[in-house]
């Protein structure tokens, strides 16, 4: 049952991304100036920070969707541009209302004019099953609950088979149990891939992140990485995590 | 059978009787012609289209021919359908306007034909008025309604065989002032024009005119049968108005459609030049011929 979440192509050498000297202003306010962040290859980096600090903007900048100002530099380890190598899950679900749930999951293939092969469809169905939406393939997004919509968006992101995965609060609309289940599934599916994930839940960051950064201040800066022991997904009741949670909250208050 | 396309000046009406009767009675077929008659919505289009080679012949008006030739259209008159003016100035019979003089300070409706103001100007001048003494309003093609509804006090451009009957039927009889009696030289109202460069050696036109002549005479000799042929297939023409117009139009058809009175054309050209509608008076043979 877990197999379909694992990409069926051999992943290329994982990619690392370095952001340096990043600068971005909105209407005169410097959101960040001279911000630096390294997204290490093949692991999950979690980003926490107070609401409105600029996490989404940073993610969009890496995805090529927000226009940074000089002297911003975004470098990849292989030197090639990032365009076309990113899977991006936004803070809103962004489901297309006219497509069925299944077609929303297959959107990437449709947009790239890829053949809708039976294997592809089977993988999409398996992903939907994994996120607990088996049987809803033919429904339209308007008939889904908030959490169900978010799960379709997760499936759509996992469907994209890209070296860099950017996720903006992917589990925010899910109940505690579904969330745990999907954290596990995502961790497994994204193992070996370079992931940058924004979350508001310190425990979630501690479960899933190899490295955890906290972003604070205006202009915002990114603190040093916290590297919890052990491999994700870590157990929720690990006492070490609880100690680190207090540390994270302290940094957040920073 | 040679094909021949003819553009009418307006929708089929009794003015076109010789053409329609020739068609219905097979006179065109008898001279080896396959004629199509097409009605335009704007009477100004047919001469342009003949000049552009889109049709072989067009029904037009003599005053317009002078203007068109003056503007450089390669047209030439080859025949005459109605050999008197039909145009007239019409007022309500029981209205305040009894003579042309009474038009002073009044509203006059016209349907733009390009020549109505010149015609009216000449008529007014004979009575010591000028165009400045009246207000001209374009009423498009609603001449009699505008007059009947009291929107205007007179209309110019009304056809004596048509609008007068129309008003009579509506029980608001009209009074017509005839231009040829009020200082405008007589002219041919409906003529047949062709492209200047295409008439040489085109035997179809002569045959066409022959058939039209034959139809005209047939109408004079057999008005009943001709009327029946005219409304055959055009039931909408079989009403009181058209029947009356038919009777009033009969005497005005040219009995000799191919014949040309060159002096009459020169006289009229001089009139138009005097009114400023054309710049030069060209020799008649440039724009009106008798087809051999």
């Amino acid at each position: 049952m877990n197999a379909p979440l694992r990409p069926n192509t051999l992943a290329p050498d994982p990619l690392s991304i370095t952001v340096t000297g990043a600068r971005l202003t909105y209407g005169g306010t410097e959101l960040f100036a001279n911000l630096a962040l390294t997204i290490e290859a093949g692991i999950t980096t979690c980003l926490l920070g107070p609401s409105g600090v600029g996490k989404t903007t940073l993610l969009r900048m890496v995805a090529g969707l927000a226009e940074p100002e000089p002297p911003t530099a975004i470098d990849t380890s292989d030197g090639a541009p990032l365009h076309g190598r990113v899977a991006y899950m936004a803070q809103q679900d962004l489901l297309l209302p006219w497509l069925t749930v299944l077609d929303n999951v297959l959107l990437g293939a449709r947009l790239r004019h890829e053949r809708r092969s039976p294997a592809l469809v089977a993988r999409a169905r398996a992903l939907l099953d994994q996120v607990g939406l088996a049987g809803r393939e033919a429904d339209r997004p308007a008939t889904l609950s908030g959490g169900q919509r978010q799960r379709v968006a997760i499936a759509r992101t996992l469907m994209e088979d890209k070296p860099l995965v950017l996720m903006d609060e992917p589990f925010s609309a899910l109940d505690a149990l579904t969330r745990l289940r999907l954290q596990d599934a995502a961790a497994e599916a994204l193992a070996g891939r370079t992931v940058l994930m924004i979350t508001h839940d310190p425990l979630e960051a501690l479960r899933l992140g190899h490295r955890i950064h906290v972003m604070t201040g205006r202009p915002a800066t990114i603190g040093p990485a916290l590297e919890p022991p052990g491999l994700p997904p870590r157990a929720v009741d690990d006492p070490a995590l609880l100690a680190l949670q207090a540390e994270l909250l302290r940094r957040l208050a920073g | 059978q040679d094909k021949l396309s003819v553009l009418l000046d307006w929708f089929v009406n009794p003015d076109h009787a010789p053409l329609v009767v020739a068609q219905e009675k097979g006179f065109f077929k008898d001279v080896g012609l396959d004629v199509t008659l097409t009605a335009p919505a704007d009477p100004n289009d047919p001469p342009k289209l003949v000049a552009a080679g889109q049709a072989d012949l067009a029904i037009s008006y003599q005053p317009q021919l002078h203007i068109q030739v003056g503007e450089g259209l390669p047209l030439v008159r080859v025949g005459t359908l109605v050999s008197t003016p039909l145009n007239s100035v019409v007022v309500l019979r029981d209205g305040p306007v009894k003579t042309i003089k009474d038009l002073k300070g009044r509203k006059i409706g016209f349907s733009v034909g390009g020549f109505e103001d010149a015609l009216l100007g000449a008529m007014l001048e004979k009575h010591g008025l000028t165009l400045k003494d009246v207000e001209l309003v374009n009423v498009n093609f609603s001449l009699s309604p505008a007059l009947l509804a009291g929107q205007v006090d007179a209309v110019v451009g009304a056809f004596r065989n048509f609008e007068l009957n129309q008003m009579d039927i509506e029980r608001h009889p009209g009074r017509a002032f005839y231009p040829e009696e009020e200082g405008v030289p007589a002219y041919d109202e409906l003529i047949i024009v062709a492209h200047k460069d295409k008439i040489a050696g085109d035997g179809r036109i002569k045959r066409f005119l022959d058939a039209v002549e034959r139809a005209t005479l047939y109408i004079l000799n057999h008005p009943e049968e001709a009327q029946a042929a005219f409304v055959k297939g055009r039931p909408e023409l079989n009403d009181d108005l058209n029947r009356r117009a038919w009777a009033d139009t009969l005497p005005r058809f040219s009995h000799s459609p191919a014949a040309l009175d060159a002096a009459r054309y020169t006289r009229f050209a001089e009139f138009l030049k005097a009114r400023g509608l054309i710049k030069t008076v060209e020799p008649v043979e440039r724009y009106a011929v008798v087809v051999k």
Partner: protein
Amino acid sequence: MRLLRALITAAVLLALWQGVVSLTGVPRYILPGPLAVADALQRQAPLLVRHGATTLTEILLGLLLGVALGGASALTLASFRTARRWLMPLLVVSQAIPVFALAPLLVLWLGYGMASKVAMATLVIFFPVTTALFDGLRRTEPGWLDLARTMGASRRSVLWHIRLPAALPAFGSGLRVAAAVAPIGAVIGEWVGSSSGLGYLMLHANARMQIDLLFAALVVLGVFAVALYAAVDALIRRALPWQPDTHPAEEKD
């Protein structure tokens, strides 16, 4: 129920019409009463049917062509900035040119047959469809565009799979206008020159002061317009089930 409503509407309209005629005393050669028109409708039924068939064909062809061309040009405008910059003024100008100026040209190029009428109907329909769709294509939710961009979609693919479906409701709005103005387009085309069709019949009747026949033809034209509009409206609702259609007056409170 709907039929009943339609019948009542018609009855009220007729009553209003009769009222205007009676109250203002409009002479019948300007506005005939409904009875006179009903009489003409009945007497001239074969004529109306014959000419109506011609006009209906022109309307439908014009609608088809106008919508196709309008859709295509909106897509072109949306696809190429160059097209937008240079073509838009052209489109706008095309709306401001009165037929009669074009009539001889149309006849010259298309003849007196059905082509010139279909061309006119097309021209009339073309602009509302183009603007509506083009406007819709411009108003896409930016989040969807961002998503598509990260998915490596080409501009054409974004246009086709994101912008176009998102613009369909706006397109539908343009279609409704097109359906309502298509009949007048065909009639205007018939004024260019024709030997059949309701437009021809109307000019004809007008020139002969058969105003009752003129209004009978108008009634037929009105029926066409309403039927077309209703059909297009139903079609649009069917085609866009995902589209919120919240009739304001049906709210409870």
